[in-house]
């Protein structure tokens, strides 16, 4: 399969949208593009399985390498392993659901869908990049559309949130930038040349001094995207001000860019430093998990509840990565996929409720199950997934992270694991309280007239995401089989480095 298709399909869609006239054409084009993306994602999955079935154990499949700026050894180099495939599938799910959820949007719908599709170019390109320049290029592509989406179509203090998000994310990518340059000028490829190529750098030994100097830049920079404490402050504002589809994208995909970068670039390319800095990251991740959970308890706005809980949940991703066992990294990737689907579903449900009830404050809602059973069910399911109910994806992912984390016998690691486990109780408290307030009980807000249940497009969106959640929750082994070999490569790398020292 030609991976560049994943970039060209959204690019083409975006161009077509620009040429469209009228809302109907725009919607049709966006939907067609979204479906095409999803198909491409599934084709990729099948092709990937087939290659693996036939015994192709090359780390990265479907590689394509094209010289871009050859004097500087910058290439357009793409390829995928199991982790990337999982993330690409996640992206296609969330983008399609996002398009469907914003179906009825009236204000500047052309620009909206254009930016949304454009955003997905950044995500796809990022997940398939094997060249650090390409990776960085796509990482930054995915920032400015968010700024516009939040600032133009958002709600609340949207201008402030948009600016905060853009500056913090670009700050993160500036840190990554410094780190990548530091790596580049300390690589020695054939002929004394430097290299941005991820697979090549992985084979070289970067001096420990260099790793220790630049690991914080790279990990911290990606950590900003992944809501690493104390760089998480953009998350609540950004998510809650954004329009529904943008919130879904932000929490569902954008935060995963960070986790993916921490794993693929920081940990994989600088294994010694990853090992050395692991305690620091574990402490920060644990703080994020617990602080996020308790901060969520204090929220009344449903969107803020989900946004703060995202900080807590994404803490598991970073915790899993920093624990540096194969199981924990598996768990971290699963958590990325699971949280991506779950949080997108949650935001979609909140968006649907807000469209009908014009408030997002849980205490003002109530009894929604009576008037909108479908949306309420979706909301409850998303909540249950968030608190880790067995049978849904959240349980699988979090349990894997904890099992992996427990494999480290060190006291600090054990304490961190226990504390993180304990946060699940807090999660249960705020989720169940929100469900109780908003969904159950008597109908409090009756002044909205006759509000209907979900329309076809909303149902469709919810079903897509729910299917993903159930597919992981009920039968996690396919995802495990997809991720595990890729995670093993990373862990092998770290183990080798540690033994060598």
């Amino acid at each position, binding site marked *: 399969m030609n991976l560049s298709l994943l970039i060209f399909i959204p690019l083409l869609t975006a161009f077509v949208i620009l040429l469209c006239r009228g809302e109907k054409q725009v919607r049709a084009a966006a939907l067609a593009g979204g479906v095409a993306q999803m198909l491409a994602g599934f084709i990729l999955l099948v092709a990937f399985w087939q290659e693996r079935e036939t015994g192709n154990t090359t780390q990265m499949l479907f590689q394509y390498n094209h010289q871009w*700026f*050859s*004097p*500087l050894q910058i290439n357009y180099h793409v390829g995928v392993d199991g982790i990337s495939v999982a993330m690409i599938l996640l992206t296609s799910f969330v983008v399609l659901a996002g398009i469907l959820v914003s179906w009825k949007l009236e204000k500047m719908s052309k620009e909206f869908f254009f930016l949304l599709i454009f955003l997905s170019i950044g995500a796809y390109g990022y997940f398939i990049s094997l060249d650090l320049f390409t990776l960085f290029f796509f990482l930054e592509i995915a920032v400015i559309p968010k700024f516009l989406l939040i600032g133009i179509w958002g709600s609340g203090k949207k201008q402030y949130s948009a600016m905060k998000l853009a500056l913090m994310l*670009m700050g993160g990518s500036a840190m990554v930038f410094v780190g990548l340059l*530091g790596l*580049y*000028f300390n690589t020695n490829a054939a002929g004394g040349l430097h290299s941005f190529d991820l697979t090549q750098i992985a084979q070289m030994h970067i001096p420990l001094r260099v790793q220790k100097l630049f690991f914080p830049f790279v990990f911290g920079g990606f950590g900003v995207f992944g809501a690493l404490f104390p760089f998480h402050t953009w998350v609540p504002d950004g998510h809650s001000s954004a329009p529904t589809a943008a919130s879904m994208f932000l929490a569902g995909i954008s935060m995963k860019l960070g986790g993916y970068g921490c794993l693929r670039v920081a940990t994989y390319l600088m294994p010694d430093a990853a090992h050395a800095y692991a305690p620091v990251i574990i402490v920060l991740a644990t703080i994020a998990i617990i602080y996020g959970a308790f901060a969520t308890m204090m929220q009344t706005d449903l969107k803020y509840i989900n946004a703060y809980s995202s900080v807590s949940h994404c803490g598991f991703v970073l915790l899993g990565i920093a624990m540096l066992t194969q199981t924990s990294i598996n768990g971290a990737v699963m958590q990325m996929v699971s949280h991506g689907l779950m949080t997108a579903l949650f935001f979609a449900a909140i968006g649907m409720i807000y469209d009908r009830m014009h408030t997002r404050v849980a205490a003002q809602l109530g009894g929604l199950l009576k008037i909108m059973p479908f949306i309420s069910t979706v909301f409850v399911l998303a909540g249950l997934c968030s608190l880790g109910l067995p049978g849904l994806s959240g349980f699988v992912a979090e349990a894997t992270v904890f099992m992996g984390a427990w494999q480290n016998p060190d006291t600090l690691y054990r304490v961190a694991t226990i504390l993180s486990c304990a946060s699940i109780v807090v999660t249960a408290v705020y989720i169940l309280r929100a469900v109780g307030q908003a969904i159950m009980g008597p109908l409090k807000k009756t002044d909205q007239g006759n509000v209907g249940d979900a329309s076809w497009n909303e149902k469709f969106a919810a079903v897509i995401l729910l299917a993903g959640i159930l597919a992981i929750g009920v039968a996690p082994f396919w995802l495990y089989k997809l991720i595990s070999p890729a995670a093993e490569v990373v862990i092998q790398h770290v183990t080798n480095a540690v033994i060598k020292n």
Partner: protein
Amino acid sequence: MTNEFYVLMKFELLVALIIFILLFMKVGSSSWSNKKVLVAVNLLLLVNFVFGFFMNSDGTLFGEMFRTNKMVELQKNMLNLGALIISAQSYSWLKNHAHVMEFYMLLLSTLLGMFFMMSAGNFLMFYLGLELSTIPLAAICNFDLEKRQSSEAAIKFIILSALSSALLLFGISLVYGTTGTLNFSELPGHLNGSALQLFAFILILAGFAFKISIVPFHLWTADVYEGSPVAVAAYLSVISKAAFLFVFTSVLYTVFKPIAGSWYNMLFLLSVLTMFTGNLFAVRQNNLKRFLAFSSITQMGFILVGISGSNQMGYASVVYFLLIYIFSNLGAFGVVAFVSAVTGKENMDDYKAFYKTNPFLASVLSVSLFSLAGIPPTAGFFGKFFLIMAGAERGNYILISIAALNMIISLYYYLRVVQTMFMEESRATIERLPVNIFAKLAMLVCVAGILAIGFVPWIYHYIYALSL
């Protein structure tokens, strides 16, 4: 000699020819309407630009006074392109102006001066070109004839130019005193880093710093930009700066190479100062011309980061960045110039909800600002990336981190303009403006350049191969 003369001096001769054509048009008949003149001039400039691609060769003339090579010719043609874009953009400003011919004659004289300066093989020739480029510039700063501010800008410009020329001349004379030659090819052998030579170098550096507005020699910039017509401000910030930067870089890398150790630290300090000062002042501007002035100061700081890298990568990244800078900055100036010419509005507040009434102009301005901020997929991303990459080559990661930090600060104020245009809910203060074909074409060229350059890597390869 004669054929060689025509080929090597092709750029200078063509520009001089256009000046003469304009002169004959002016003297010969007074019945030319402004519109006809503008069409004719723009066509001539287009021809001039297209000719720039042909018959390029290396060589020297007049006993090494004048030298040219493919790199210099590429740079000259970049300036030709910039002049063409500015000329097309100022159509709506000039079509009712009483002195179009004079404007173009003066403008092209400065261009001619810059070409001589860039081709100089000797400090004397360099100074000659510099003065030819500066004095007419002061005259066209005053071309909003009825505005007091415009005259003020011209006076400021000419006085500070004279000061910087004096510094340069002092430096040059010291160089001559210590080495006995002013020839670029002989100088490196005579430079030994003695105290007097370093002093001379500092004076020359200060002279250049005035021209390309590097902090602490930047104070004239914002005032002159604000006072002069927008087209002239664009010319000052793009063409004039690019020309001086080309000369500056090549002089540093060739003539002053023996004392590279000393100027490296100076550039480090100057670039940090320039980036911070430009940024911090740009944040507070409301007038878009002043805003662009400070933003261009910041860009100069980034360029210094690139210059402080090692030879080939540094030189290539500077030239590449300037190529992109021409498109990005002219795109931004183009919109501001157009709106200013039609409505007289130049403040950021006037651009509230600009997208609602003028989606095309707002999009062009946004894309240009994104490019200036260095956001992919615009070309500015590649330009900034390579500049900072060149700066990182010597392992000075403190400088790189500061540059990265400044990219964030600069992003803030570029995004603020975008925010004003797209996100303000209030009624737009500028009504829908019909864009004339010249301005539209110029803007489209800028946008096309901004979007395409990064994806046409042979441009970079070509520049890199030439910057030995």
